[in-house]
């Protein structure tokens, strides 16, 4: 709806949030996780 998602490479680990509206799950936030782990200090 006016926005375009970035195309993300297959196999990329992501964290996604969304809402279902009338049975359609709509993405609201997408976080791409790095492979190096990190301290997770949020």
């Amino acid at each position, binding site marked *: *709806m006016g*926005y*375009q*998602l*970035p*195309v*993300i*490479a*297959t*196999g*990329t*680990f*992501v*964290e*996604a*949030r*969304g*809402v*279902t*509206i009338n*049975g*359609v*799950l*709509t*993405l*609201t*936030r*997408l*976080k*791409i*996780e*790095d492979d190096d782990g*990190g301290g*997770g200090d*949020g």
Partner: protein
Amino acid sequence: MKWTALLAVAAFLLAVGSASAAPKAIKGTVVAKRAHIIVLTTGRKGLAVKVRVAPRRVRLGDRVSVVGKRLRNGTIRASRLHVLSHVKKARIRGMVVKRLAHAVRVASGHSVLTIHTRSAHAASRHDGEEKGELGEFEVEFEHGDLVEDDFTPVSPAGTVEIEGVLVSVSPLVVSLEGLPIEITVPSGMTLPPLTPGQEVELFVQAGAGNTFTLVSIGKADNEDENEVEAKGTVTSSTTSQITIDAGGARR
């Protein structure tokens, strides 16, 4: 770590058949687990809901979808439960009812949850949350415990939604997991027919000295929460759609 924040953008491909077919599904994150009872924090508000379930494999942090019937005591008896994904953090909105050395007890919905703090609270010090304080906790799941990551207080002048069991109508007292809260009904406000013992949902204005003034009151309904969270690997991606394999559930 980089964030791509997208507002109301594009569709996930949803391959969890039951999700769209469940009219009264409640989705939430498991924040407590007892024998036959789990506590979910639901929706953006992060209110806690108790669910009676058959013993099964759910872990703290599991994001689940529950279909069931709300019982008189406010608990939901689940007839179906699906684990959707697993998350590391959750939001809980509630009121601090007790402050311990390394934890706070927080009332949310019908439940009182223990949230561990990373540093000790000294009773004489004013760090950390105070008893009676309302707010939103961001918690992390660590070794079967809830550990506070962040706390955003709700302004004492703010309106807060609470759920509980009606103890009495005059004075208006609502029990949050056995903790009675007296709520002032503004003069001129007419209450709907209420019966002690019934589950109610209220908006209250929190004031100084832990006083609460009623803004609105209604019968609590099953929530139809729609928020979904998933982690997994991308199996396909276009400019309008992304498919994630979230370990058993593709979304």
